[in-house]
């Protein structure tokens, strides 16, 4: 693996702004992006990703690759939490294991768009329908996580409410960030199919502004990650190791699945990044709501404090090397 792609990745504005944010915490600068500004950018990014994704899906139509890829994506988000759960159970109770595992089965939209930016800067093509995979991978892991709690947890959860299937579906599909992404995707699709002039009118907002808003959001994410990281110490070295090992492990599985699906290098990277990234929006929110026994500082600090920065700064170029190595191998 050459050093070049890592350096090139680090020198892109979004990653640089992320580092600026993190360094500001390190140096105890009082730079601060007060609430609810991060929420504004987070909502904006979800809306824009969804909208543009919906347009792309409508435009590209359902090619041969779409269905297998989307199915594999869902499958991965069902399998990863199971593996993660088994690993985590060595050290943690059912509640914490399920909640953390679910986070790693789900995805991080900002990691995904960072990968897209990386591909664009490397001039590697990828398909718009991959946003569909992003959208479809958010919820299944939540369902798996909650089912794990439902069936693996002691029958008598003293502090908890009963968890009906309807509540599980509600949390996994109507969670604010899942809902906004999915529904914006539908809006984009409908706009592209029945109102194409609307695309151009949205473009300055959802398209042109996107990169800059991503940078601004990553500046805040850098601050948040660097504030979260020290709290991981309390969680112990097992969890710290997990937060680095798990994305690498998932990437490794992901790249072979991508190869099996004969995805091109661009789509492969995005697929791998979806597998490797962990959720800090949808899953934590859903887990906080339904599994109060799990410590939110565990699942949010791992994903936000370690896995996210790792993926953004080092992971993406590492996964690209992995893709470039594995995908072109002679057929299995």
């Amino acid at each position: 693996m050459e050093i070049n792609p890592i350096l090139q990745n680090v020198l892109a504005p979004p990653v640089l702004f992320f580092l600026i944010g993190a360094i500001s915490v390190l140096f105890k600068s009082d730079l601060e992006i007060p609430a609810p500004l991060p929420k504004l950018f987070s909502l904006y990014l979800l809306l824009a990703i969804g909208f543009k994704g919906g347009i792309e899906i409508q435009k590209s139509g359902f090619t041969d690759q779409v269905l297998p890829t989307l199915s594999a994506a869902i499958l991965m988000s069902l399998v990863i939490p199971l593996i993660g759960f088994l690993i985590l159970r060595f050290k943690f109770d059912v509640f914490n294991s399920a909640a953390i595992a679910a986070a790693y089965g789900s995805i991080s939209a900002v990691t995904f768009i960072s990968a897209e930016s990386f591909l664009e800067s490397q001039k590697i093509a990828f398909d718009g329908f991959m946003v569909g995979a992003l959208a479809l991978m958010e919820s299944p892991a939540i369902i798996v996580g909650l089912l794990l709690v439902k069936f693996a947890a002691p029958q008598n959860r003293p502090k908890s409410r009963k968890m009906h299937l309807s509540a599980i579906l509600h949390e996994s599909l109507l969670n604010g960030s899942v809902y906004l992404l999915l529904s914006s995707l539908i809006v984009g699709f409908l706009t592209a199919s029945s109102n194409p002039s609307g695309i151009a009118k949205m473009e300055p907002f959802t398209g042109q502004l996107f990169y800059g808003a991503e940078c601004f959001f990553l500046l805040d994410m850098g601050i948040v990650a660097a504030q979260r990281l020290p709290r991981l110490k309390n969680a112990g070295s097992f969890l710290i190791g997990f937060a680095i090992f798990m994305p690498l492990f998932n990437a490794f599985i992901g790249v072979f699945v991508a190869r099996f699906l004969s995805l091109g290098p661009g789509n492969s990277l995005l697929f791998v990044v979806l597998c490797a990234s962990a959720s800090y929006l949808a899953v934590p929110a859903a887990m906080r709501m339904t599994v109060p026994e799990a410590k939110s500082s565990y699942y949010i600090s791992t994903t936000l404090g370690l896995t996210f920065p790792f993926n953004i700064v080092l992971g993406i170029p590492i996964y690209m090397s992995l893709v470039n190595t594995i995908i072109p191998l002679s057929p299995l």
Partner: protein
Amino acid sequence: MKRLDLIFSERELDAIIKTLEKANVPGYTVMKHATGRGPERVVTEDMEFTGLGSNAHVIVFCEQELIDKMRDNIRDDLSYYGGVAYISEATPL
């Protein structure tokens, strides 16, 4: 007259307000965006954008008997996510 201070995760706000309304409190005030630490959990500002939710601080001025009526329900609500509830004396101006 009493003053009841409730501090808890804003995700529990609807449940708490339902409890208050069921007891027919004369009114209540809600302040969101509170952070803090309790015996078990730390609540920080970044929990707002992630959807985890920060804390709400609810103040209720009401008679002792209403508080007695609500006590069990509130304790129940707070036992789920955590949170604190304190009573103090208050006199209307």
